[in-house]
């Protein structure tokens, strides 16, 4: 057998087989930081999106709760949740792009593309609703005419964030590659076949 190719030689000989470009061209500061804190490779995005998802869903939920009960404090909570959701979304998008750049080979996966587009739409919708509610505290109290658009925006936040997180979840936990635990693939009666 000939001498084994080193990874660097393999990279030079067959660049098309290399992994993520980012892995090969990390700026020194990023490389040093990741070497020191390897958890930064994957943790920041899943952590931050917890906040975006829950705050956005809560903004819709508490707005509806206000409409159902008339309790003004629910409207305030919805507003704060909307604000927190808007605040957390840009870091969520940024860490998502960073995680993808770092871990995925080549261009964006189609699912990630969709997730990105939905995220930008969500940011626009939620930010618009937040500014509206900040300028007009009574917008949900006087629910008629153009104010219905505000309600539509707040309601739209939930399906948008659900779809975004669903596609994000598919990137992180792809169903097609999730094996059934081995103890369940060895069931008697021939039932335990891998999907």
């Amino acid at each position: 057998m000939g001498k084994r190719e080193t990874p660097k030689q393999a990279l030079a000989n067959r660049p098309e087989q290399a992994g993520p470009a980012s892995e090969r061209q990390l700026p020194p500061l990023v490389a040093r930081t990741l070497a020191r804190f390897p958890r930064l490779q994957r943790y920041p995005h899943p952590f931050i999106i917890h906040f975006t998802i829950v705050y956005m869903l809560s903004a819709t939920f508490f707005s509806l709760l206000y409409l159902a009960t008339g309790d003004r404090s629910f409207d305030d909570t919805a507003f704060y949740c909307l604000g927190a959701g808007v605040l957390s979304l840009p870091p969520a998008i940024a860490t998502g792009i960073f995680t993808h750049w770092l871990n995925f080979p080549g261009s964006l996966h189609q699912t990630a593309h969709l997730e990105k587009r939905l995220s930008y739409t969500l940011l626009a919708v939620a930010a618009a609703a937040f500014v509206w509610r900040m300028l007009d505290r009574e917008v949900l109290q006087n629910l008629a005419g153009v104010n219905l658009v505000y309600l539509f925006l707040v309601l739209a936040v939930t399906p948008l964030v659900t779809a975004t997180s669903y596609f994000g979840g598919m990137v992180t936990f792809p169903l097609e590659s999730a094996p059934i635990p081995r103890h369940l693939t060895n069931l008697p009666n021939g039932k335990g076949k891998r999907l």
Partner: protein
Amino acid sequence: MTEGKQEKKFTPGQLAEGTGAAGKPVYVAYRGKVYDVSASPLWEGGRHMEAHRAGGDLSAEFAEAPHGEEVFERYPQVGVLAAAAPSEAELAISPGDAREFWFRVLQKAPLLRRHPHPMVVHFPIVFMISATAFTLLYLLTGIRSFEVTGFHCLGGGVLFTPVAMATGFFTWWLNYLARPLKPVVIKIVLSPILLAAGAGGFVMRWQNPDILGSLGHWTGLVYLALICTLAPLVSVIGWYGATMTFPLHEERGP
């Protein structure tokens, strides 16, 4: 591999030799096939993304990978994994009706295989942290609506914590055979404490909406202490959950 050629069968021991250490090749197994990924810069030294080690079967870990299985097409398949005898733990398991039932459910709804717990835990994590954050924001600013929002978030956290615990137990029973793994044990111990602290705080605030106005009294201080423990408690629980979802093994010692 050449069609019709006898494929080399790797025992787990032979596979474990492919660690990439001391000039050895870097072998990984996926769905019964053994690949030589020595040429990959991402497997230099037999480690991948600080999360995966060579010389083992990655089929289970692959579900967490942010890429598809097409990555294996770049590397030569050097053999197949010899069917290993079931481990003692696996032999000790009597699947029983419950697991058979869930197997049928999982065939119909693969989403249930992993997602319910990661989906549900978003809520207690964010609501409990928010309960602490909005309460402290109220103490800092004096704006009453922050305190009320903290209370609402506390209610959300208390509501969702049992659901997260239940789905966590289910995932543990189904995917980890209810083995006493360290992160799970820590979560099992801390989660009821979190629930008790959250529920206790919620009841205190429910009975006395001005409880934070009486910080000079012991009840106000106890309430504030309960609220302030929620964020660190849920953070520790979430951290150990994250280490199971996105395992990042520490460097081995020299």
